[in-house]
């Protein structure tokens, strides 16, 4: 009973906050609702017994991605009513994309029902929870059978990161930057000379 209650609680809040993400007037509120949606999805994952995915969802999406969203959205200075003017214009194409997504989701649902029981490949069978925690199970699968795909995903992300840095980085001339190595290497002799000045002669 408690399980069902938790499920409906998390699911309702997820759907509600997902709707509020697109319908609230203030973008900062939208991001906050997005965070609430992430949280409740993490709750749903915990109900499924997938605690590792739930924690990763919170760490990656709430702890890092949403912070960056927030960072950007907070600094926007836009007129929200101006933003809403195009609503009518983009309604048809937006609706179309929504319909396509809905159809695909329905297809997945029907396909699931029609496909019969899921066949378990003995090589990848999930061990029982009392034998191995599911963090361990994910790790032992990800770093053996799917090691190549895992590494590829990592490389793609690395390339994307380097690409973003290359595209946005510009070397500005005339900016003084601290170079710690130079500072540490600098010795007394580099900065000044000690000159023995004889009395009455000056430096000449």
């Amino acid at each position, binding site marked *: 009973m*408690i399980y069902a209650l938790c499920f409906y609680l998390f699911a309702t809040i997820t759907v509600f906050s997902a709707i509020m993400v697109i319908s609230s007037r203030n973008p*900062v509120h939208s991001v*906050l609702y997005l*965070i609430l949606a992430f949280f409740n999805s993490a709750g749903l994952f915990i109900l499924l017994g997938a*605690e*590792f995915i739930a*924690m*990763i969802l*919170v*760490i990656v999406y*709430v*702890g*890092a991605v949403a*912070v*960056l969203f*927030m*960072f950007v959205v*907070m*600094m926007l200075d836009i007129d929200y009513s101006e933003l809403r003017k195009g609503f009518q214009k983009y309604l048809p194409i937006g609706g179309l994309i929504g319909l396509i997504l809905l159809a695909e989701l329905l297809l997945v649902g029907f396909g699931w029902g029609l496909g019969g029981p899921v066949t378990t490949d003995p090589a990848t069978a999930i061990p029982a929870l009392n034998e191995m*925690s599911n*963090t361990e199970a994910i790790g032992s699968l990800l770093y053996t059978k799917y090691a190549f795909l895992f590494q590829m995903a990592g490389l793609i992300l690395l390339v994307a990161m380097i690409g973003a840095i290359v595209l946005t980085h510009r070397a500005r001339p005339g900016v003084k*930057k*601290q170079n*710690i190595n130079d500072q540490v290497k600098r010795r007394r002799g580099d900065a000044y000379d000690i000159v023995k000045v004889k009395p009455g002669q000056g430096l000449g």
Partner: protein
Amino acid sequence: MADLLVEFFQWGFGVTLVPWLAIILGIVVGILAIVLPLLLVVAMSVYMDRKVWAAMQMRRGPNVVGPWGLMQSFADGLKLFLKETIIPASANKFIFLLAPALTFILALVGWAVIPFDAGMVLADLNVGILYIFAISSLGVYGIILSGWASNSRYAFLGALRSSAQMVSYEVSMGFVLVTVLMCAGSLNLSEIVLAQKDTFLGVNGYWFTPLFPMMVIFFISALAETNRPPFDLPEAEAEIVAGYQVEYSSMAFALFFLGEYANIILMCAMTSILFLGGWLPPFDWEPLYLIPGWIWFFGKIFFMFFVFAWVKATVPRYRYDQLMRLGWKVFLPISLLWVVLTGLFLLLTDKIPA
């Protein structure tokens, strides 16, 4: 567990409860048993902090309220409690009040998985370390929301500084956690502590192994995560007054303050659990086990807190570009290298924990 709790309430209070009520009551009692002493510890740690700085600066520190000034924190608390909560006219009221509450709640929530002694833990999660990491990464929201909702330039600058800072230092902190859990072979905090028994020459804890540099990096990242000097740029009083706290008064400010200290103590507890051997005595020597584990654990937290205060009293504040350089160009490569080295070491010496 439900049967045990039902039996306990029967034995203690002479009432028979339905199992789910017994579980809920048991959890609530557990939460109170952690939170109430924690708040007391927070109050006393503020006092200790001030006394340590005072001693290092050849002053006396708080010495008026109560014997040796012991009641100073409570007097401050009472003062804040009796003040008026001022909400700026142009502030976003709901978020303005949500932010300090969020900071405070998140600082308390993290304590759910901390093992105080063998088996003395509220929620023995399998992914305890990830839970702590998730909670500490959420801490940034309290600050970023307060900065935005205050609708004030100083507060906003503080929020921007803090969000960039906390996200940066989380990265190296994550790698430090990876090195530790590779050695321990578990994400469960109790098992991480138990894995540190007699790591080398009869010393309990990873600090006496080549993981020591990771402990230093973890500690410094913890300073940055909790906005403590030398990384207190979000509230740098000389530049942006008090940063994100500038518009807050009364209990809203007190919640920030309490949350900050609860977070600091949580970070001290994490350092003790990950590197100093948690509730285990410092040396693997039989008579030391006679002293209860939680006393060792509190002793280690106390020591780490002293180091936190020591750092604040001695080190000047970083400039912002230096802070970013330290996080991304020094800590990140070193901790990444250490992950690789630790993995290689465990692989070559065949010490990978099962």
